[in-house]
């Protein structure tokens, strides 16, 4: 096993020399974003010790050279298929798996950079126990047994002092997240919280309440797509993105895109509408108004399949396009034109919900308005429209009975947000309740694959929440900002080093795929299942983990009656090769809603005391001298997870604040100037990106930068975190974080 530039052993002098010596001046014409891309800010960390150097013997013995393994990416939620080229125990290249029905023949920058995930010199290599003050970065290497023993002991101390509910468990999606959640349930705390209330909870609740299920979009066959702020081309390159963008390029889909910012998606849309921030619902209410007033809706569909249409007729009567123009700054005639075109293209026409729906306090209603535009044109369960998810059922082990939690959840979600998914929790509320110790103290926190210091608005409060804990354990693959604040770090094997459970996919039709191990784990890392098993054994909870991963997979596959050899040829398996349409459009079909129909006037909302139809409030405007802060993502990174990846870091070493060129001129701000940005909850320094591509009333800061963990040698100290600025706020119905409500001031430093 030799050490190379991308070696797992750490950066040797060989590599350092190579890096410093590069000639970086060659490409002066790289373009506006190119200036910072190559060569800048890469180093400045030479001589600092790598967290967790290990001996070469930690690398497993070589396996047969030059293999190919079909497996599944783990760098974002999308899970694209790839074929890994492996030499010995090194992953040398990841190529798209053309047989994978969902991702077909794409692999994005993050997917390609998976090579660096496994061979990242900064990755966590063995368990660590904190030796200095919390956050000091003083650690010692520990054996698994010692780290698990300590974790179990500290958890038991919390249990004795505060009860099982004194432990909080938080996690983010992943193929092994289920084992973490099983462990949390077996422990018996009600306090389990996941990412949806920082992401898509409001959208899910709105669509579920309307259709009784959260549907997929059949973009492959769609001919007209309206998108609000879901910046697919720039923020998240997935199969949905590809279908939308390639069909738009081929003239098969017309794309209408609403965004205060001229993103890549805006540039690829036939129509870009630079909407006034926070007024998207007004646009959709006006569309509903026009659909009804001009009788453009699918009357037969509405009559047969929906409930409460008459209430909507009365509700949207005042919401004329002229009214909406005053709110959105989109001309009324444009709203009329788009609505007419949309109705003409139906049912192959959709309002695309997007993924992160954590914008404003009325987000669930905004997404409901989007759902209702879809309902009225009858695109439900038709080709090119919204389609219910289909799946192939998998088996699972039978677990012993889980204990009832000994207390109510601390976030009070059942009372405060009864329509939200209890088991996902309401993170912003939860943090405040923990800080207030209301109604009881929570003093232990176990975190899996999540980085709350970057995920939640108002980072100072998250830090305070961490600091008030008696005990924090983090399971991760890199020393994230949150891991840096832990007492114990338990290093997980990366997605390339594990066999994971078989996973069911829905798009473009149901299929199964198996993430199989590409290489054996490097260093002393373990898959989540084994970490949970180890901990369960120390806590007397081993009966919940009476299986290994092989047994788990066998149990899964017993249900469809297949063996794992079905994955040998292509990595995927299905009993069909296309989507079915119209399965819910049959007589006597009962939608999973109180009325049994698709709900226009929403009975779930009404029962819980909410208005059954979207309630619009004109958003407050930034006072003079202030700007609305709009966070957003770049497709090179998943949240704050991989800014430290050597290859991705090069693409964008730091973020900068987008500011309108005219506004910048007035204030004497030039491209690259350092700015002091202040909000009611914090301040950051960040460079200016002066651009014509954003409205004057808002500024934009890409998410995931401003990392503070000194264990992240590339990312530490680069750029600024949006979460230092964004004040805590949440959607009334679901408790989903509302990330677009903060105003900031800007001054040149």
């Amino acid at each position: 096993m030799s050490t190379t530039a991308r070696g797992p052993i750490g950066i040797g002098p060989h590599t350092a020399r190579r890096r410093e010596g590069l000639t970086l001046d060659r490409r002066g014409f790289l373009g506006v974003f190119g200036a910072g891309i190559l060569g800048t800010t890469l180093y400045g960390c030479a001589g600092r010790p790598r967290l967790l150097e290990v001996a070469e013997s930690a690398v497993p013995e070589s396996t047969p050279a030059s293999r190919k393994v079909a497996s599944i990416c783990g760098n974002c939620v999308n899970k694209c298929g790839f074929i890994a080229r492996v030499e010995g125990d090194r992953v040398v290249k990841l190529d798209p798996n053309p047989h994978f029905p969902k991702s077909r023949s794409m692999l994005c920058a993050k997917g390609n950079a998976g090579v660096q995930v496994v061979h990242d010199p900064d990755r966590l290599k063995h368990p660590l126990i904190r030796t200095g003050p919390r956050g000091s970065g003083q650690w010692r290497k520990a054996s698994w047994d010692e780290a698990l023993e300590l974790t179990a002991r500290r958890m038991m101390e919390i249990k004795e002092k505060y009860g099982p509910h004194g432990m909080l468990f938080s996690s983010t999606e992943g193929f092994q997240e289920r084992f973490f959640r099983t462990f949390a349930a077996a422990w018996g705390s009600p306090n389990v919280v996941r990412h949806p209330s920082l992401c898509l909870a409001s959208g899910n609740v709105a669509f579920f309440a309307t259709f009784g299920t959260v549907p997929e979009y059949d973009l492959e066959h769609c001919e007209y797509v309206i998108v609000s702020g879901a910046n697919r081309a720039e923020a998240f390159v997935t199969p949905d993105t590809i279908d939308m963008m390639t069909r738009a390029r081929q003239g098969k889909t017309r794309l209408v895109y609403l965004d205060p910012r001229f993103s890549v998606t805006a540039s690829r849309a036939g129509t870009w509408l630079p909407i006034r921030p926070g007024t998207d619902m007004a646009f959709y209410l006006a569309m509903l108004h026009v659909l009804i007033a001009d009788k453009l809706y699918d009357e037969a569909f509405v009559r047969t399949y929906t409930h409460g249409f008459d209430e909507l007729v009365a509700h949207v009567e005042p919401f004329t396009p002229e009214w909406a123009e005053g709110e959105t700054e989109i001309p009324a005639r444009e709203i009329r034109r788009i609505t007419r075109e949309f109705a003409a293209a139906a049912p192959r026409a959709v309002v695309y919900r997007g993924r992160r729906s954590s914008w404003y306090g009325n987000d669930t209603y905004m997404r409901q308005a989007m759902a209702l535009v879809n309902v009225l044109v009858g695109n439900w369960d038709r080709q090119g429209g919204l389609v219910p998810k289909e799946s192939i059922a998998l088996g699972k082990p039978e677990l012993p009975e889980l204990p009832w939690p000994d207390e109510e959840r601390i976030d009070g979600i059942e009372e405060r947000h009864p329509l939200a998914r209890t088991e996902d929790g309401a993170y912003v509320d939860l943090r405040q309740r923990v800080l207030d110790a209301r109604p009881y103290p929570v003093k232990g926190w176990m975190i899996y694959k999540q980085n709350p210091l970057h995920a939640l608005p108002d980072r100072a409060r998250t830090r305070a929440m961490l600091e008030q804990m008696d005990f924090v354990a983090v399971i991760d693959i890199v020393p994230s900002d949150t891991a840096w604040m832990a007492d114990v770090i338990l290093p997980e094997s990366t997605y390339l080093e594990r066999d994971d459970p078989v996973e069911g996919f829905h798009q473009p039709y149901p299929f199964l795929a198996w993430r199989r191990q590409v290489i054996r784990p490097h260093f002393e890392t373990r898959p989540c299942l084994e970490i949970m098993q180890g901990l369960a054994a120390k806590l007397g909870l081993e009966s919940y983990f009476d299986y290994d991963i092989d047994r788990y997979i066998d149990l899964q596959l017993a249900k469809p009656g297949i063996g794992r050899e079905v994955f040998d040829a292509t990595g995927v398996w299905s009993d069909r090769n296309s989507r079915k349409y119209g399965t819910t459009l049959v007589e006597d079909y009962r939608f999973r809603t109180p009325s049994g129909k698709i709900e226009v006037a929403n009975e779930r909302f009404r029962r819980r005391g909410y208005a059954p139809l979207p309630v619009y409030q004109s958003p407050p405007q930034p006072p003079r001298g202030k700007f609305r802060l709009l966070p957003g993502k770049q497709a090179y990174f998943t949240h704050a997870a991989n800014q430290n990846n050597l290859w991705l870091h090069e693409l964008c070493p730091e973020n900068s604040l987008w500011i309108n060129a005219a506004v910048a001129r007035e204030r004497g701000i030039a491209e690259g100037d350092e700015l002091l940005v202040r909000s009611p909850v914090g301040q950051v320094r960040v460079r200016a990106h002066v651009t014509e591509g954003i409205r004057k009333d808002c500024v934009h800061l890409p998410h995931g930068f401003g990392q503070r963990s000194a264990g992240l040698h590339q990312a530490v100290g680069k750029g600024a975190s949006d979460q230092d600025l964004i004040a805590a706020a949440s959607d009334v119905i679901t408790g989903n974080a509302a990330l677009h409500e903060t105003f900031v001031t800007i001054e040149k430093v």
Partner: protein
Amino acid sequence: MANKQYGMVIDPRSCLDCKACVVACKAENHVPLGASRNWVRHSLVGTFPKLQAVIEPGQCNHCSEAPCVEVCPTGASHFAAGGTVQITREECIGCQLCMEACPYGARYYDEQSEKVDKCSFCWHRVERGLEPACVVTCPTKVRVFGDLNDPTSRVARKLAEHPSVVLKPEEQTRPNIHYITD
């Protein structure tokens, strides 16, 4: 192999600047940190709200009249099979004259090896009947690669079906990468 002319047709308006090609190339060709064999230029034209994004992926054009080949004192940069421009690493003395001569900035100097390098069209793959890594990984299939001299090839048909330009035609380098303009 006689008379083959490998080349690419790039549809810049399909490009999302996702840089999958940049990272794929890096992995495929062991390109050192800080250097890159391909890139995506991205700029805005116009004033708010009348805007256009100009997104343009690029790499070595494998020119048929290649200034890099002309100036290379050792013959390291040379015309190779399939009409491509390649560098024989053993013959490169690192003088960097080719870098100055290239109008496209497509070459970089690697201080580690003390040699110049650039896009090879993934020749090690093409030889085995595979496409270049950047072509394979691209989500929106911006690049089409193949033999421009074979009128039945996808790349030749694509070129025939669409109006296109080459970069810096005034340099008279006869690039073999064509950009679709419609």
